[in-house]
C-alpha cells in the first residue's frame, strides 16, 4: 500500500498532467457535485480508470458566507444567531464553543444549573445531528429505510429541544453567561421517557442496519485510514476515533461539567468506512447515557444565566476554546481589542479537517465506494465553507 506522501505526489502529478479530455483518453473525468445527488454543497472532481478512482480534487467553497468576517461587525451577543447557520443541525454545539470563548474574554462564571442545561442541550443536539448524518449515509448507500428511520427518530430530540429552547432547529440557546431560559415543567420525565425509547430503537438500528451483510460488504475494508495517517492528516471526531485513537475533547480537555460525568470514549481500531459509520452510533449510545446522568445530577433549582452587562466587553487579549461537536473538535479563536465587538474571530471546524482525508482515501477505490467513503468522513460542506 502506497504511503500517504506517495499518494499525494502521484495524484498531484496526475492532476496537472491531464488538462482536458480527448477521445482516446483512458481516464474519464467525473464532476461530483455541486448538483450531484451524492455530494451535498460541495464539488470534487475525480478521474476514473475503468471502475477505479485514480485522482480526486476536492473543491469546497460553494456556500462560503463569510461568517468570520461577519463576526467583526457585530457585538458578542449579536453574533450568536448567525454563527449557528453553518450547521443548523448541530447549532447548539457551535454556540457552545463560542460562548465558552466569550465568557473567558468577558470574565464571567456560569451558574452550575446553567452549565448542566447547556451540556444537556449540547448532547441532545449531538443526537439530532448524528441521526441526520446517519440518515444521509443510508441514502448514500441506497438504503431508503436507513434514511427514514433516523429522520423519524430525530423528531424525539427535536421535540425535546423545542420544549427546551422554543425552536426546532436553530435554537440560539447558548449565550455567554449560560442559557437563555430555564427548563420547562416536567421536562425531565419526558426526556427520560424519550431517551429510553430511543435506546430501544438503537438496538433495532444495530440489528437492521449495521448487522446487515450487504451493509458490511459495502463498508468493511473500504477506505482504510491507518492510525499514523489519521494523525498526519489531523482528522478529528469520529474519524480519528474510528482509526484507533480514543480522542474526545470532552475527555481530553473537559469543559464545564464534563469532568464530573462518567462516560467512555468510544473508538474502533479498523479505520475503515464501517468503523467510521459505527463510531457515531456508539457515540449516540454513550450520549443517551450522558443525558440520563445530566438529568439526574442537575441541581434542582438555581440561576441558569449569569448577570451580564447589556453590551459586554472584556480586556484586550485573545482566547481559544473548543468543544466536541458532532463532527469533532470545534474551536473558536477570538481576538478582542477591548471593544464590544471582536477584533477577529476564527472558527476551527472538524468538517474541514476531515475533508482533507478525502483525496487520500478515494484514490485506489472503486467508484461505487465513493459515497460510502465520502459521507463516512463526517463532513458537513456548509460548515467547512463557513
Amino acid at each position, binding site marked *: 500500500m502506497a504511503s500517504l506522501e506517495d499518494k499525494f505526489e502521484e495524484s498531484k502529478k496526475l492532476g496537472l498532467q491531464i488538462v482536458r479530455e480527448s477521445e482516446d483518453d483512458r481516464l*474519464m473525468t*467525473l464532476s461530483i457535485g455541486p448538483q*450531484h*445527488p*451524492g455530494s451535498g454543497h460541495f464539488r470534487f472532481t475525480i478521474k476514473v480508470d475503468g*471502475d477505479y478512482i485514480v485522482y480526486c480534487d476536492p473543491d469546497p467553497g460553494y456556500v462560503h458566507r463569510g461568517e468570520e468576517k461577519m463576526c467583526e461587525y457585530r457585538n458578542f451577543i449579536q453574533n450568536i444567531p448567525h454563527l449557528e447557520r453553518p450547521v443548523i443541525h448541530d447549532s447548539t454545539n457551535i454556540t457552545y464553543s463560542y460562548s465558552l470563548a466569550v465568557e473567558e474574554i468577558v470574565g464571567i462564571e456560569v451558574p452550575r444549573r446553567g452549565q448542566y442545561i447547556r451540556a444537556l442541550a449540547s448532547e441532545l443536539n449531538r443526537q439530532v445531528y448524528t441521526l441526520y448524518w446517519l440518515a444521509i449515509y*443510508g*441514502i*448514500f*448507500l*441506497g*438504503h*431508503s*429505510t*436507513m434514511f*427514514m*428511520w433516523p429522520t*423519524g427518530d430525530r423528531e424525539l430530540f427535536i421535540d425535546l429541544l423545542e420544549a427546551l429552547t422554543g425552536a426546532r432547529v436553530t435554537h440560539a440557546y447558548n449565550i455567554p453567561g449560560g442559557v437563555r431560559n430555564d427548563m420547562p415543567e416536567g421536562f425531565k420525565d419526558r426526556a427520560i421517557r424519550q431517551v429510553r425509547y430511543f435506546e430501544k430503537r438503537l438496538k433495532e438500528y444495530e440489528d*437492521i442496519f449495521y448487522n*446487515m451483510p*450487504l*451493509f458490511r*460488504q*459495502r463498508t468493511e475494508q473500504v477506505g482504510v485510514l491507518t492510525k499514523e495517517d489519521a494523525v498526519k492528516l489531523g482528522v478529528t471526531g469520529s474519524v480519528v476515533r474510528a482509526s484507533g485513537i480514543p480522542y474526545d475533547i470532552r475527555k481530553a480537555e473537559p469543559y464545564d461539567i464534563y469532568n464530573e460525568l462518567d462516560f467512555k470514549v468510544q473508538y474502533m481500531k479498523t479505520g475503515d468506512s464501517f468503523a467510521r459509520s459505527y463510531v457515531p452510533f456508539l457515540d449516540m449510545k454513550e450520549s443517551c447515557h450522558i443525558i440520563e446522568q445530566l438529568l439526574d445530577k442537575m441541581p434542582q433549582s438555581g440561576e441558569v444565566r449569569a448577570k451580564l452587562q447589556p453590551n459586554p466587553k472584556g480586556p484586550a487579549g485573545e482566547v481559544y476554546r473548543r468543544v466536541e461537536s458532532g463532527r469533532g473538535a470545534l474551536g473558536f479563536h477570538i481576538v478582542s481589542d477591548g471593544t464590544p465587538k471582536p477584533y477577529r474571530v476564527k472558527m476551527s471546524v472538524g468538517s474541514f479537517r476531515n475533508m482533507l482525508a478525502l483525496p487520500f482515501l478515494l484514490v485506489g477505490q*472503486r*467508484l*461505487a*465506494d*465513493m*459515497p460510502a467513503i465520502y459521507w463516512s468522513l463526517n463532513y458537513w460542506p456548509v460548515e467547512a465553507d463557513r
Partner: protein
Amino acid sequence: MATYPQNYRFGEFIGSILWLVFWILIIVTLVGLPLIFIVLFYVPLPPIGDQVLTPYLFLTMVVDPSRTIPIIQQQMTTDLFRVAMFPGFTYAALIAAATIFIERKFLAKMQLRVGPLYAGKIEGIFQLLADGLKLIAKEIIVPSGADKPIFWAAPIAFVAVSAAVVTLIPVAPGWVVADTDVGLLAVFAILGFFPLIALLFSWASNSKYPFIGGLRALHQMIAFEIPFILSALSVVILSGTLNLTGVVEAQLQSYWFIFFVPISAFVFYISSLAELERIPFDLPEAESEIVAGWLTETSGMIYGLLQLGSYIKTYALAALFVVFFLGGWAGPQIFPPEFQTPLINVGPLYDPVAANATFWFTLKTFGMIMLFLLPRGISPRIRIDILLHTGWYKLIVLSFINMFVALALIYGGILGPGGLLVR
C-alpha cells in the same frame, strides 16, 4: 384555501353546463349518429348469434344494453382482445399500476411513513394518475449531441419488449396470446434485448453518467442471464416441455415445482431482481454514485415510458415465477359455476374456470411482486464486484445443484410420465 373568481355565479356555471350539453346533443344527433350508420352500412359485420348486426339492431342496443352482450362475447374470442385487453397489455398495465400503488404504501409502512395521502382522497389512490399527468405535461429535454432517433426509439422499444414478454404468459387455461412450443426459450430471447436497449439509450444520451450506468446494466444483466436460464432449465427437465402452458399442466398433474427445486426458485428470484434493476441490484441507476445511471437524461414521458416498461417487466417476471414454480393458475375452485346479474345479465360472459384461474394467478403474482418489492425496504445497494462475483460464481453453481436434483427425480421415477408423485 379555495380560490375562485370574484364575479363567480353559480347560476352561470349551471347555465354553461346546460349550454355544453345542448351542443353535444345537437352534434351527436346531426353528425355522430349518421356517421355510425354509414360505418354500419358499409362495413361487413359478423352475424351475432342468429341475427346480422344492422343499424336497427344497433338502435335497439341503445335502448336495451343487454343486447350488446353477444357482441362482447364474440369480441372476446378475437386475437385483438387478447393482445390489447385480457392476458395482454391492459391487464399487465393495470397490474403494473397496482404494483406502483402497493409499492408506495407497502414501503411507507415499512419505513414508518404514511405514503401518498392526498390525491384521490382515499389513501392517495390517484397519485399515479397525478404523476402520469405531470409527466405528460412536462417538457422532454433531448441533450445536445444526443443520437436523436435512438434516444426517441429506446423508451418505446423498452415498453414494447416488456409487453412482448407478457404475451407468452398463460394466465388461465387457454388464455394466452402466443402459445408457442418454445415459450420458455422465447422468454429468454426477449429478455436478452433489455441490456441492449439500456446500452443504446445510454450511448445515445451523450453523457458520462448514463454511459457508466449503461455499461453497468450490461455487465449486470449478462452476469445474471446465465443463472436465470439455468434455473429455468430444471423446470424444463421436470415438466419435459418448453411450452409454458405445458409447464403449468405438468404442475397440475403433480405438485408445485418449488417443493422439488427450491434452490432454482431462489436463484430465479435473485436473478429476477437483478434483471429488474431493483434494490439491492439497482447499480445501473445508483443515485448517489452516478446521478440516475442510464436514466439521467430522461425527462417527461420518456421517463414515464421507461418506468411503465420496468413495472410491466416486474409483472412479467413475477408471473414467470408463478408459472415455473408456483403452479400457475392451480388452486381450489371457489367461484360459483354460474351467476346472473339483475338488469343487464352478464352471465353469458362468465367462465367459472377462467375466472378462478385468473383469480389464483393474480393472487400469486401479487405475492411474488411483494417479494420483489421487499428488499427495497431492508437492503442497501451492493457493489459491482460483489454483484459479478455473486452472479458468475455462486448462482451458477447453485442452479446446477438443483438441475441434478431434477434429473434424479426424473430418472428415479418420482416425477415425469408415470412417476410416483404424478396424479
